[in-house]
């Protein structure tokens, strides 16, 4: 019989061997020889930490108790791996794209980097996994006790468990916290696990082969013996078969240690494809001999012996000490690899999501303190490792190690399976919100604690017998094994069904009614559409962070050398010679992910946000920026409108200016004209008066002729001056109007007679007298002056061969207008604009007019409340006199 001391010696040698392998793997990594360390084979083997001591010892015990049911624990993961395309592919991609360091990190990152969620998940994971760690310690000490010589006294199991725990903690601390960046991966640990995976597979296969060919004598006799055994018929609780398969699949995805090896330690996504068939193969080989070993154990071993240890006791009973030792090493490997990875995963969560945030917020300086944060992180992680293994040990001591291995394992599975709705929901459903995830997790966790964890201690230990029978607070529908009054379900199935169902219901329902924050929505889109765009979380307002601050902070987390390399590379990428890179958005995102790999997404985000400013995320800043741009847009629209106005005014001004310039030219022309006009008669008057004065003996006829010339010229001057005076009076508003009532026709008649008096030029005038039967109340003299002026103009300037003037009266409602249309040459457009201005003269006319007539007309009409306009027609010129509406009293 092998002594315990020998076994301990063998174990120590084995552990030393693992240390050496891990050490060389780390060395090789440091030298850059990672290729063989990171082969698909190593990845597949590292997944084997799914097979813990529970598999190694417990599966046989499970089979001895319940037949084929044990296999469900391996069918679920096999299906998940074979169906990698559906869930694992996305999970691995998301985990790598977001640099998730743990399940808690992934969930918190998905739901807006919420640290609250991370803390909840971490606490749940610690509570859920601690029994599992205790289970491993228990299995190692139990297996050691088997070898203990009954005569020299039983093994002190507690102290054995303590030393096992101590050794595991030491290994994990040494190789799990060597480098801080989890994404640099723990090559030493992974290699050690891969070696252990091979050891446990070989050990179990060896025992199996020994049992089938060494004890039973071949496959056929073995089959016969299986059928003849107490478990030889198919006796399956159907609900358990289904529930356990689903549960194991869920736990495979949600277990923190599985996430660690499957996602965090994943080097290349293609490895997953190979593992999709290689890992099911591993699982199948691990389960292949479980039933034969159980059957032979039931047959050979005395009644009452622990079936969980058949793997050890059968070789021992058959005298195969070497095989038993190998088997012990296999079990030892299973237990240690699980504890190491689980502890590593949990310690990452605890230090990143609980210790670091607390430490950071406790320091008033925030992230900008001096000193090396790296040491703090590593210290936190080491403390977490010791704490978690310590918890496992304490749990082991207090639970007394009595329960069957399989049962404790299942409880743990149900606990971690509660993460699954939030995890998978988060990567397939964009509508999943933080509060939904929190509600689902808490509901599922509460049901698990009440229906699975607490009852596992047995009636009367934590939950009183009353609660089991009467329900919580005497409420019949709150019984731990019969929630809502549904009795008769298997306790495990009951716990799985209710916790997962209500977890999902709460998750979905709360997600539906809550509204996610902008950051959550961004992250949600990134997670769900990870294959469309792998990358780009939300941005930082880069301008506010200085490179020095970032450098100082990064050094403290990644270490001086790594930080400097990172910054140097970035500076080179930006094309800067040496020195520090510009803190661009892209660089900040890159940096945040680098830091996230060390301290978790939420902490990295918090640290950068302290430096960059605005502890709340820059999405809000983006929103503000968006608001600002909206305002700017509006402002620019206003500006545009104003500029339109301005250009319109400018156009008007330009037109006015042109008009003014034209007028100025006209005025100059007129001044010279009027000087000429005034001068010409003055000259005649002066010269003729000089002739009259100087010439002696002038005849009466000549005197009369000269005097009449002088008179005529004086008359012309007077007329000119009268006109100017008249216009001046009209313009200054000093004119007094004499209103009287009279017919329009009479007024026109008088005007025509006056205008044509003394005229030699023939002008035929056509009128429609019927229309003229309108009584007007206005200043008839002034209106007549306008008419006379227009008729005289036609008379003077109409250059047609047979000049004709058509005078017509139009009524349009209250408006009355009189138009004077001649058939002369139309006034050119250029002149039309100024014909109503003073001194305006059209074309090269003779000097008989002063250019004041139309100006006077318009002034008069303005005074009378009407208007006079010129209408351009093809055949001639038409002047329209618009009479004030109130002046037309009534049609007669």
């Amino acid at each position, binding site marked *: 019989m092998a002594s315990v001391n020998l076994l301990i010696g063998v174990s120590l040698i084995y552990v030393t061997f693992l240390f050496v392998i891990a050490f060389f793997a780390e060395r090789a990594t440091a030298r850059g020889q990672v290729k063989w360390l990171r082969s698909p084979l190593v990845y597949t083997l590292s997944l084997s930490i799914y097979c813990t001591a529970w598999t190694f010892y417990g599966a046989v015990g499970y089979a001895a108790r319940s037949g084929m049911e044990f296999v469900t624990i391996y069918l679920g993961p096999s299906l998940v791996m074979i*169906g990698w395309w559906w869930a694992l592919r996305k999970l691995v991609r998301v985990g790598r794209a977001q640099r998730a360091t743990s399940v808690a990190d992934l969930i918190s990152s998905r739901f807006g980097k919420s640290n609250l969620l991370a803390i909840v998940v971490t606490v749940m994971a610690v509570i859920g996994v601690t029994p599992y760690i205790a289970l491993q310690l228990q299995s190692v000490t139990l297996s050691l006790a088997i070898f203990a010589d009954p005569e020299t006294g039983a093994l002190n199991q507690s102290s054995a468990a303590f030393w096992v725990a101590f050794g595991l903690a030491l290994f994990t601390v040494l190789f799990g916290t060597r480098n801080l960046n989890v994404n640099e991966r723990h090559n030493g640990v992974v290699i050690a696990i891969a070696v252990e995976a091979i050891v446990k597979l070989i050990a179990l296969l060896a025992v199996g082969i020994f049992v089938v060919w060494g004890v039973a004598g071949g496959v056929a006799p073995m089959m016969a013996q299986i059928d003849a055994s107490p478990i030889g018929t198919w006796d399956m609780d159907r609900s358990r*078969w289904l529930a356990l398969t689903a549960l194991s699949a869920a736990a495979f995805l949600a277990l923190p240690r599985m996430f660690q090896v499957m996602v965090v330690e994943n080097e290349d996504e293609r490895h997953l*494809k190979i593992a999709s068939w290689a890992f099911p193969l591993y699982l199948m080989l691990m389960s292949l001999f479980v039933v034969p070993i159980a059957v032979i154990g039931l047959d050979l071993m005395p009644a009452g012996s622990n079936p969980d240890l058949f793997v050890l006791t059968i070789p021992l009973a058959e005298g195969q000490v070497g095989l038993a030792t190998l088997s012990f090493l296999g079990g030892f490997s299973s237990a240690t690899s699980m504890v190491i990875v689980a502890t590593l995963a949990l310690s990452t969560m605890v230090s990143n999501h609980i210790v670091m945030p607390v430490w950071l917020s406790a320091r008033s300086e925030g992230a900008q303190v001096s000193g090396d944060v790296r040491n703090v992180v590593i210290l936190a992680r080491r403390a977490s490792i010791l704490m978690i293994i310590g918890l496992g040990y304490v749990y082991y001591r207090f639970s007394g190690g009595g329960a069957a291995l399989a049962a404790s394992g299942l409880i743990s599975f149900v606990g971690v399976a509660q993460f699954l709705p939030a995890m998978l929901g988060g990567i397939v459903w964009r509508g999943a919100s933080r509060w939904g995830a929190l509600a689902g997790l808490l509901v599922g966790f509460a049901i698990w604690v009440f229906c699975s964890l607490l009852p596992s201690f047995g009636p009367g230990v934590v939950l009183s017998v009353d609660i089991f029978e009467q329900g919580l607070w005497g409420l019949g529908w709150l019984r731990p094994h019969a929630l809502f009054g549904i009795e008769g379900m298997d306790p495990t199935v009951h716990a799985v069904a209710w916790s997962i169902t209500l977890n999902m219901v709460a998750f979905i329902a709360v997600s539906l009614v809550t509204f996610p924050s902008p950051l959550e929505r961004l992250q949600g889109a990134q997670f769900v559409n990870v294959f469309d765009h792998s990358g780009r979380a939300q941005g930082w307002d880069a301008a506010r962070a200085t490179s020095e601050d970032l450098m100082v902070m990064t050094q403290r987390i990644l270490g001086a050398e790594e930080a400097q390399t990172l910054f140097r590379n970035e500076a080179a990428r930006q094309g800067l010679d040496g020195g520090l890179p510009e803190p661009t958005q892209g660089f900040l995102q890159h940096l945040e992910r680098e830091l996230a790999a060390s301290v978790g997404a939420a902490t990295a985000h918090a640290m950068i946000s302290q430096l960059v400013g605005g502890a709340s995320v820059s999405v809000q800043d983006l929103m503000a920026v968006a608001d600002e741009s909206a305002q700017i847009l509006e402002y620019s629209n206003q500006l545009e409108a104003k500029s339109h106005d301005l250009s319109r005014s400018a156009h008007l001004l330009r037109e006015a200016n042109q008009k003014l310039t034209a007028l100025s030219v006209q005025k100059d022309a007129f001044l010279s004209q009027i000087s000429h006009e005034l001068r010409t008669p003055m000259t005649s008057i002066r010269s003729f008066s000089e002739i009259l004065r100087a010439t002696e003996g002038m005849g009466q006829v000549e005197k009369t002729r000269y005097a009449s010339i002088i008179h005529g010229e004086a008359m012309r001057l007077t007329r000119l001056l009268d006109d100017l005076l008249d216009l001046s009076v009209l313009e200054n508003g000093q004119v007094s109007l004499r209103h009287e009532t009279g017919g329009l026709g009479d007024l026109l008649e008088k005007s025509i007679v006056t205008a044509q008096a003394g005229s030699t030029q023939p002008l035929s005038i056509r009128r429609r007298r019927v229309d003229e039967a309108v009584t007007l109340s206005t200043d008839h003299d002034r209106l007549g002056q306008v008419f006379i002026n227009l008729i005289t103009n036609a008379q003077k300037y109409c250059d047609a061969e047979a000049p004709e003037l058509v005078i017509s009266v139009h009524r349009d409602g209250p408006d009355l207008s009189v138009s004077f249309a001649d058939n002369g040459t139309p006034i050119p457009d250029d002149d039309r604009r100024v014909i109503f201005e003073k001194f305006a003269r059209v074309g090269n006319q003779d000097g008989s007019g002063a250019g004041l007539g139309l100006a006077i007309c318009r002034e008069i009409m303005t005074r009378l409340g009407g208007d006079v306009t010129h209408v351009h027609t093809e055949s001639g010129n038409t002047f329209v006199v618009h009479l004030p509406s109130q002046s037309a009293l009534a049609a007669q």
Partner: protein
Amino acid sequence: MSTPAPTPVFLERRSYRRRRMMDALRLLPILGVFLWILPVFWPTPTDGPTAPETMALSTAVTYVFVVWLALIASAFSLWFFLRARPEMGEDASGEPF
């Protein structure tokens, strides 16, 4: 004169084969679920005296492990053949047929 169509209606035989293999890969776990759910319908001793004769454990073991092996072999051969072909459009949805 013929102008090349921007997206071919029919894929060349190689890509077509690859797409169908991806389909098979996706459906494989569903087949696995179905085959491993079947034991639920096997009679058990608790079904009562009228139930058909219960299945021997050796048969059950053989069945579960044969299914397991078949699934592994299928997954392996799909991986093997997909590996040999160029990786394109694997993640794309709405691909032509």
